[in-house]
């Protein structure tokens, strides 16, 4: 399956899950800021991707949760710590390194949602499907 095939299926999934128009979903779209996803939508998206692609997505694998659970060694003063950033890179090997670097330059917890883009999902599925 090519990257575009995956993108088209992901796009259709997000159109259904988030009630968006087809042309609103691009690779660069951020799930929360651009497409209006709320926390429960992330679970819905995971369920739909599993059905659509016939795969299992273990909890926290696509959208890591550990960072959000208030561990002071990972998050301090509203920012992700060095240890937190290392954990993020470890948990999200499929993420675009350039996007992670951009986030690491100003690792505010509030900005972390910007990492969750359509591109991230496509890259995750590419890695998963070729494994």
């Amino acid at each position: 399956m090519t990257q575009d095939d995956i993108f088209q299926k992901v796009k259709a999934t997000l159109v259904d899950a988030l009630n968006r128009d087809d042309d609103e979903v691009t690779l660069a779209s951020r799930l929360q800021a651009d497409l209006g996803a709320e926390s429960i939508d992330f679970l819905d998206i995971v369920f739909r991707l599993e059905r659509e692609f016939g795969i299992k997505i273990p909890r926290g694998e696509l959208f890591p949760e550990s960072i959000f659970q208030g561990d002071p060694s990972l998050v301090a003063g509203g920012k992700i710590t060095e240890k937190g950033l290392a954990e993020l890179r470890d948990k999200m090997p499929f993420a675009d390194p350039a996007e992670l670097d951009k986030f690491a330059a100003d690792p505010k917890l509030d900005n972390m949602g910007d990492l969750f883009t359509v591109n991230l999902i496509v890259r995750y599925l590419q890695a998963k499907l070729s494994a």
Partner: protein
Amino acid sequence: MRWIWIDRFTHFESKKTATAVKCLSQAEDHNTEHFPGFPVMPAPLILEGLAQTGGILVGEANDFKEKVVLAKVPSAKFYREAHPGETLTYTADLLDLRPEGAVVKGRVTSDGDPIAEAEIFFAHLDQNRSAQIFGDNNFVFSGELKYLLGIAQRVATTETSA
């Protein structure tokens, strides 16, 4: 206040599908105001009936140990109004069941006539967090909803032995 919007289960296959019926009566309070002179079953209550049918299907799948809450209705379509005197049939099929929640696809018919369709997404409340807030009591399946399954079993037994 009773908040039960189905009358009886007529078919139940664990972890698979459930069918329930709801008889619409002119005696229901909402029919006097919704609308005066033209009683219509409110669409959200139709959806609630479908969610109760699906919610019990999801709850039973884990022996009512999870607190099942309606998290999202990704899609709902209504084809026509339903009026007192009709019997609605709610059918919910389990699409997905995971530790975090479940998805059901449901349809509502009246004498075979399509009334509505919806996909309903249920979440299981986090066991640890909800125990801190609500204690061990499962407020979702506190009795009335589970009681419905009991009615279905008793009626089925009566019908078989008659």
